[in-house]
C-alpha cells in the first residue's frame, strides 16, 4: 500500500482525535497484517468504493472506548451506545481523509459507517494488504485497520 493512500488517514485521525478529544495524539505503532484482523473491542467499519476500494476499521478496547465515548459526549454516562459514538468518530476521520484523496484526483464513494461486530475483519486478498495503526490518546489506544486497493486502471501496475 502506497504512502499517498495512508498519509491522509494518519493526518485526518491526528486532526480529528486532537480536535474532538482536545488532546495530543501519538502514533504508537504501524504494522502490516497479512492475516485476518481480530477485533479488540468496540469497532466501526467504513467501506469505500470507486477507484480505491476496501474498508477501514476503527477499533477501541472497551475501557478506552468507554472513556472516549464519555469525553466526546461530554457526560460520564452517554445516552448513545459506545458503538454509535465510534461510528461517528470513524465517519469524521474517513470523511476528512477521503476529502484529501479526492482532491488528489481519486474518485470514490464512502458508505455510512456500520458497527463492526464480527470477531474477524474481512479476509485480506493477494492485492489488498492491511495496515494497522495504533493511536495513543490520554483515554487509551485507538486502532485503525486500513485495507485498501487501487482499482483505477494503471495505478495498481505502478506499485
Amino acid at each position, binding site marked *: 500500500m502506497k504512502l499517498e493512500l495512508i498519509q491522509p488517514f494518519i493526518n485526518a485521525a491526528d486532526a480529528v482525535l486532537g480536535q474532538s478529544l482536545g488532546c495530543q495524539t501519538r502514533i504508537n505503532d504501524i504494522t502490516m497484517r497479512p492475516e485476518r484482523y481480530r477485533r479488540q473491542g468496540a469497532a466501526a467499519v467504513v467501506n469505500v468504493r470507486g477507484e480505491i476500494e476496501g474498508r477501514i476499521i476503527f477499533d477501541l478496547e472497551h475501557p478506552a472506548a468507554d472513556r472516549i465515548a464519555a469525553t*466526546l459526549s461530554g457526560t460520564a454516562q452517554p445516552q*448513545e451506545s459506545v458503538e454509535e459514538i465510534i461510528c461517528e468518530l470513524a465517519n469524521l476521520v474517513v470523511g476528512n481523509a*477521503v476529502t484529501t484523496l479526492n*482532491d488528489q484526483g481519486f474518485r470514490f464513494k464512502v458508505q455510512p459507517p456500520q458497527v463492526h461486530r464480527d470477531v474477524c475483519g474481512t479476509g485480506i486478498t493477494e492485492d489488498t494488504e492491511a495496515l494497522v495503526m495504533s493511536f495513543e490518546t490520554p483515554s487509551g489506544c485507538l486502532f485503525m485497520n486500513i485495507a485498501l486497493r487501487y482499482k483505477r486502471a494503471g495505478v495498481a501496475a505502478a506499485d
Partner: protein
Amino acid sequence: MQFSALLRASDMAPVRYLIVDDSIFARKNLAKMIESYGGCVAGEAGDGSTALTEYSRIKPDVVLMDITMPQMEGIEAAEKMMLQHPEARIIMVSSVGYQENIVAALQKGARHFVQKPVKPEMLYEVIKYVLGVDCTVAAEATGARP
C-alpha cells in the same frame, strides 16, 4: 464559548432548525450547538427521504444536512427539497468536504457547506450569513455552551 442568540427578525422568536444526519450522536452534538445559539430544534431526520417529509411538516428556518446517509443521500435530498420548497435554507454539514461534493451541493441549492468536525463558532457565523437580514443577533449571550 458563549454566543449571542440568533433570533428571527420577523418575530424575534428562536430560529427553528431541522437536523438531518444518520448518526444520533452527530444530531445531538448539533442540537447542543443550536441550543447554545439560542435556537430551537424543530425536527430531526436520519435520512434524506425522512428529511423531505419533516421539512414539509415543520417548515424550519434552517436545515443542517449531512451528505453520507443511507436510503437517500444529502445532496439528492437537498435537490428535492429545493424543488419542493425553493425558500429552504440548507447548510450541508459533512466530514466529506471535497471540491466536487461542495460544488454539487451548492448547484443543487444548498446555501453553504461546513466540514465536520464542526467548530461551533464557524457554524454560528455560517448560519448568521445564510439567514442574512432574516435574523437578528440578541444583545446578550445565551449562556448555553455547546
